[in-house]
């Protein structure tokens, strides 16, 4: 596969995952704001921005409507949902011959939808529906990606982008939340605290899945355990990193070139860390630092993907 094409597929996928994450976190924040609680609106908005990685140029000015609008529609703000969808489509447009027509049409529809007057109307009249429509659009894209595309190298780059972006976003989210989460008064659940915990789980669409594993008994350590170490839940860090690793292995198998040792080692190390650590060990140490190191390892994996597959030098390629 052409390096440029792999690059576009990878970023198309990352941008869509990023816009989904933004929409979901915004949705949770808006719904938590409906309940009066000890957490102020300002704290919530600041925390939302932090969980999105404090995108440059985005600040809390005291106007929730303005921030919401910027986060969704601002074409100049590179982290806005509109920008992410534009970029996803722009990448898709450059690999039209590589993706299926269904995939292209899905991402294209999403692009046209978010800039349509109907979307504006829906945004004003029914925010929940508006956000749900965007997420539906992204889910549909993922669905047709899995069902209409050959599960070859291109698909693996899409998957790689999706899971790496998701792992990074989840680690960021947890790093932001862990402090207030773990400092909750033990076993003393007021209704508000319960809502907070549900909110965090819903940021990762994981409330129902959590209940299946742990029942509706919400405790901070179990939530952390679930979102970091669960093997089977698609938004858990371990699951995402497993996905990254599987995709890297699959990409390596499609080609005949020398194995990218450093890349495989970095991904393998991160995988092992999540595979063999227990929640107790994490809590005994520094959960914040632990999560931060996951983010850094994700960045390292990204750099190595570039070095091995996308921006390699001609000399090194001819030497093989």
């Amino acid at each position, binding site marked *: *596969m*052409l*390096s*440029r*094409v*792999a690059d576009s597929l990878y970023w198309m996928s990352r941008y869509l995952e990023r816009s989904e994450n933004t929409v979901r976190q915004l949705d949770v924040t808006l719904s938590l704001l409906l309940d009066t609680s000890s957490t102020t609106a300002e704290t919530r908005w600041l925390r939302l921005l932090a969980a999105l990685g404090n995108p440059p140029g985005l600040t809390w000015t005291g106007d929730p409507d303005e921030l919401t609008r910027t986060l969704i529609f601002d*074409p100049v703000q590179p982290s806005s949902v509109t920008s992410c969808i*534009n970029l996803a489509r*722009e990448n898709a*447009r*450059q690999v*039209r*011959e*590589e993706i299926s*027509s269904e995939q*292209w*049409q899905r991402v*294209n*529809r999403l692009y*046209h939808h978010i800039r349509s007057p109907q979307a504006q109307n829906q945004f004003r009249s029914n925010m929940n529906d508006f956000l749900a429509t965007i997420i539906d659009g992204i889910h549909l894209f993922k669905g047709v990606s899995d069902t209409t595309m050959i599960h070859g*190298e291109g698909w693996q*780059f899409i998957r790689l982008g999706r899971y790496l972006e998701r792992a990074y976003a989840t680690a960021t989210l947890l790093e932001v939340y862990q402090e207030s989460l773990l400092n909750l008064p033990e076993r003393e659940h007021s209704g508000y605290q319960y809502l907070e915990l549900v909110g965090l789980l819903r940021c990762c669409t994981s409330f129902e899945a959590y209940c299946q594993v742990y029942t509706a008994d919400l405790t901070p350590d179990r939530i952390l355990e679930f979102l970091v170490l669960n093997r089977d839940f698609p938004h858990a860090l371990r699951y995402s990193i497993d996905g990254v690793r599987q995709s890297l292995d699959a*990409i390596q198998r*499609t*080609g*005949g*070139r020398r194995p990218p040792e450093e890349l495989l080692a970095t991904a393998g190390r991160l995988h092992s860390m999540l595979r063999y650590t227990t929640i107790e060990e994490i809590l005994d140490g520094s959960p914040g630092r632990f999560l931060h190191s996951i983010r850094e390892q994700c960045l390292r994996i990204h750099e190595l993907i570039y070095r091995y*597959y*996308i921006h*390699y030098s*001609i000399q090194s*390629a*001819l030497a*093989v």
Partner: protein
Amino acid sequence: MSAQEPVSLDNLPSRNQADSTSARMERDLSSLFGDYLLDDAYDEMRTQDGAIRPHYRALMETIANLPPDELLRRKQSADLSFLTQGITFTVYGREEGTERIFPYDLLPRLISADEWDRIEHGLTQRITALNHFLRDIYSEEKILRDRIIPRDLVYSCKHYRRQMRGLDVPRGVYIAVVGSDLLRLRTGEYVVLEDNLRVPSGVSYMLTNRRVMKRTFPKLFHSYGVKPIEHYPQLLLNTLRSLAPEGRPEPNIVLLTPGVYNSAYFEHTYLARQMGIDLVEGRDLVTHDNIVYMRTTDGLKRVDVIYRRVDDDFSDPLIFRADSTLGCAGLFNAYRAGNVTVTNAFGTGLADDKAMYAYVPRIIKYYLDEDPILNNVETYLLTEDASRQHVLDNLDKLVVKAVGESGGYGMLIGPQSTAKQREEFRAAIEANPRNYIAQPTLDFSRAPCLFGNHIEPRHVDLRPYILFGDKVNIVPGGLTRVALEKGSLVVNSSQGGGSKDTWVLESQGEAVQFSE
């Protein structure tokens, strides 16, 4: 009912249905045709006395029989289909590039089997001769030695590529992919207006128009018995494969695009996908030891055939324009070394030059010893004394074009010109007659087009697509371009032109009447 006998609008055949339906249809047709005015131009649908030509009859009856607003509904659903498929072109100059769907008309243009037969033979003959011409010019130059074509006309052409001299191109094929523009004159005769021998575009619109039309008028399409065109990408792939360098039995074929900002980018992606080949940009290619490679995730991979959609000038900064980043440095040398096939070959623009065009009938005669099946538009070469005198005497009736210009520049349209302009051109022609040609003002054919709920005639041309590998292959049909502005003769998409599907019929066009 005999197919040869056109039906008058006022006297449509009654069908085996209730009289009221028939009456309604008459009414509908007259409202449909509100101001369908005939003039001197050939009308594809109606004869000079207003009757509908036999092969258009079923189409018109079907349209007239659709419930009110149904046409509008189908038009909208077709629009949506183009938009979601991303069959758009970019309008530049606005923020983040506004995308528009390529304007198209819902009514197909119909061509009967015998008309097509003539077009196919004519184009095959023409392209074969032009390919002989290119091979001769870049090798023995027999046609120059025999003084059929003046040498200076060839050497002064800006598309003539000295670098191509003495180079054996694979299978002797210079022009593998061609799109020629045809017009239909007042008499109904098809003539060639120009040949596009460099990087002709538009074939994707031909293919997607067909796909949308099949969905929009499925029954009508079926009942007409239309020849298929859908295999074009496969034919193109076979053509490219047949031109691969010797000793490369499983050639790696790629399509080279200037990139996403090119107005034909949609077409490049479409063709690459339909053929299952990689779409590459110049930055994906590297050359080493006269071999072209592409950068893949699995390292460098050798490239054998390049279907080039980048102009000569931008293809290789070492040989052509040094400021171009669209091509690949070293490509031409790899091509010369025979390690990669690039098609169309470089320097083919020589044969579609405006002045060379006038010589095409002589080129056909010289190489094939045949008379042209499809004529040129009558063209006066101003280097010839008699022609020049005729043109200078009739400047107010003719169109004069500078050979080096395009896009309407350097042109005198006689009937619309002032005496001052004519004098300027007279002086310019007398000073440098080789730089100009003259043609009569063209009055080409019109076809019915849909505007809201009624039908009006608009001028159309036809661009069939010709493939030349082992042999010449032409899919039946092509892109019919429409001048959507009333009275306009300009069919270019940049200037208010659109397109319509082109149905080449299996028969002479006696389609069964069929309600949709």
